[in-house]
C-alpha cells in the first residue's frame, strides 16, 4: 500500500514549479512571435499572424546568414573544444602528479574570472595578426570559454571509468583503435555528449566576445537578436 507521502507531494510541486517557471516565459515568447497585435490589458492576442516568422525567413531580415554563421562557428568550436579537452581530461582523471592542482586551476581560470579583460587583450593580439573580423578569430575566442567546461565534464567521465578496463583489453590483444572503440568511447560517450552540447551552447549564446573580436562584421544570431530588440523598442 502506498499513499502519497509528503515527499511525493513536494516532488510533484517542485516539478510543476520548475516547468512553470521555465516554460512560461518561453511559451509566452513563442505566443508573442505569433501575435500581430496584443494590446493591454488582454490576456490573449487580438490578432494572430505568422507575419513575424515570414519576415524572419525573408532575405531582408538577414537572419538566415546569421543562423549559418552561428551554426558553423559553434560546430567548429565544439569539435576543437572536445579534441583539446579529451587528452587533458584523461590525464587529469587517471594520473597523479605534482603540478596537477596547478594545471586544474590554470584550465579553470576562464571560468573563475570574468573573461572580458582577457578578450580585450586577445582583441589587441588579433588586431596585430589580422584575426579580428574573421570567423577563425571569433571561433578562437569562443574556444577559450568552452575548453574549461569540456575538460571539467570529460574529466568526470574518465574518472568514472576504471583505467584497468583499457589495460585488460590490451592484454587480451586489442589494438589501440579497438580499445578506444569498444572500451573507452562507449564508457565516456554520455559525458562526451554533454561536454559537446555545453561547448556548442556556450559558443551559440556568445554575444560580447563575438561583438569585440568579430567587430560587427561576423554577425551571429545573438547579434541579430540584439539588433532586433533595439530596433523595436
Amino acid at each position, binding site marked *: 500500500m502506498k499513499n502519497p507521502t509528503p515527499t511525493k507531494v513536494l516532488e510533484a510541486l517542485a516539478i510543476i514549479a520548475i516547468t512553470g517557471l521555465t516554460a512560461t516565459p518561453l511559451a509566452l515568447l513563442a505566443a508573442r512571435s505569433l501575435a500581430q497585435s496584443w494590446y493591454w490589458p488582454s490576456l490573449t492576442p487580438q490578432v494572430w499572424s505568422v507575419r513575424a516568422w515570414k519576415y524572419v525567413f525573408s532575405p531582408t531580415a538577414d537572419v538566415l546568414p546569421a543562423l549559418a554563421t552561428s551554426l558553423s562557428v559553434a560546430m567548429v568550436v565544439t569539435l576543437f573544444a572536445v579534441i*583539446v579537452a579529451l587528452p587533458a581530461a584523461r590525464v587529469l582523471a587517471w594520473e597523479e602528479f605534482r603540478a596537477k592542482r596547478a594545471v586544474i586551476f590554470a584550465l579553470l581560470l576562464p571560468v573563475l574570472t570574468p573573461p572580458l579583460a582577457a578578450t580585450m587583450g586577445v582583441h589587441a593580439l588579433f588586431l596585430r595578426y589580422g584575426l579580428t573580423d574573421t570567423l577563425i578569430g571569433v571561433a578562437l575566442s569562443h574556444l577559450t570559454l568552452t575548453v574549461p567546461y569540456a575538460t571539467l565534464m570529460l574529466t568526470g567521465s574518465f574518472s568514472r571509468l576504471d583505467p584497468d578496463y583499457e589495460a585488460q583489453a590490451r592484454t587480451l590483444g586489442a589494438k589501440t583503435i579497438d580499445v578506444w572503440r569498444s572500451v573507452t568511447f562507449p564508457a565516456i560517450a554520455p559525458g562526451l555528449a554533454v561536454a559537446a552540447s555545453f561547448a556548442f551552447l556556450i559558443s551559440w549564446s556568445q554575444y560580447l566576445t563575438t561583438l569585440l573580436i568579430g567587430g560587427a562584421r561576423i554577425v551571429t544570431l545573438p547579434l541579430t537578436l540584439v539588433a532586433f530588440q533595439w530596433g523595436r523598442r
Partner: protein
Amino acid sequence: MLLNFTVRRWLMLAPALAVIGVLFAGGLALAAAQSLGYFAPTGENALTLRHYVSLVDDREIYASLWLTLKLATAATMISAVAGSALALGLREVARRSRTINLLLQIPLSVPHLAMAGALITVIAPSGLLARGAYALGFIQQPADFPAFINDRYGAGIVLSYVLKEAPFIALMTLALLARLGDEYEQAARVLGASAWQRFRHVTLPLVAPAVVSSSLMVFAFIFGAFEVPFILGRPFPAMLSVVAQQRYLDVNLAVRPGAIALAVVSALVTAALAWAYMRLTRALIGLERPFVL
C-alpha cells in the same frame, strides 16, 4: 617506441594548456599591459598608472561596482540555495527517471539573451503578470505594476540569472549525488543519527564540493556577464561589464585603456572574492578540495 610517461602526460595536456595559456592568460597579460599604458591605440607606449587613477576618481565606477557586487551575490546565493534544495529534494525522483534531468536542462539550453527577452514578456509593466493583476483588479494601468525591468534593484536581472543558474547548480549537485549513492546516509541512520544530524554531518559535507564549485563559477559568470544587464538593466548605474564594453567601443580611442583597466579590476575583484569564498567554505565546513575533480 615507448614514450617517457612524463613526456606523454605533458603532451596530452599541451593542447588545452596552450589554448588557455595563449588565449586567456596571454590575453589577460596583454590587457594588463595596455591598462598600464603599453601598446596604447593612441600610440603611447610607456608605464603609467593614470588609467587606474582616473577609475578611482570616477563616481560612476563606484556605483557600478556596488551594483555588480550586490546583484552577483544575490543571484548566486538564491541560485545556490534553490539549486541545492532542488537537487536534494528531487534526488529520489532523479534516481528513478531521467525526466528531472531533462527538465533541468531546458533552462540551461536557453541562451541568456533569449531568457532575458522571454522574461520581459512576463514581468514587464504590460507583461503577463501585470495583465493578470489587472484581470484580478489589483491594478488599473501598467504604471501601477511594480517595475522589474530597468528597475532600481535589478530584480529582473537577478530573476533571469536565478532561472538559468539554479538548474545548473542543481544538475551539478545531482551528478555528484548520483556518483556517491546513499550508503553513507544509510550507515549514519543505522548508527542512530537523527535526520538533522544526517543532513548536517553527512549529506551537507557530501554535496558541498558540487555546490561550492558550481556557485563559484556562477558568481564569476554573473560578475562578468553582459547580456542580461544590457537588456534588463538601467543605463545608470550599469553593471561593470556593460560600462567597460561601452567605454571600450567608444569612438574616442583614448578612453580604451581606461575600459581595459576597468575589466582588469573586475577580474581581480572576482579572483579575490573567489579566494575569500574558498577560505570561508574551508573554515565553515572543512572543505579542502572545492572542485569536483
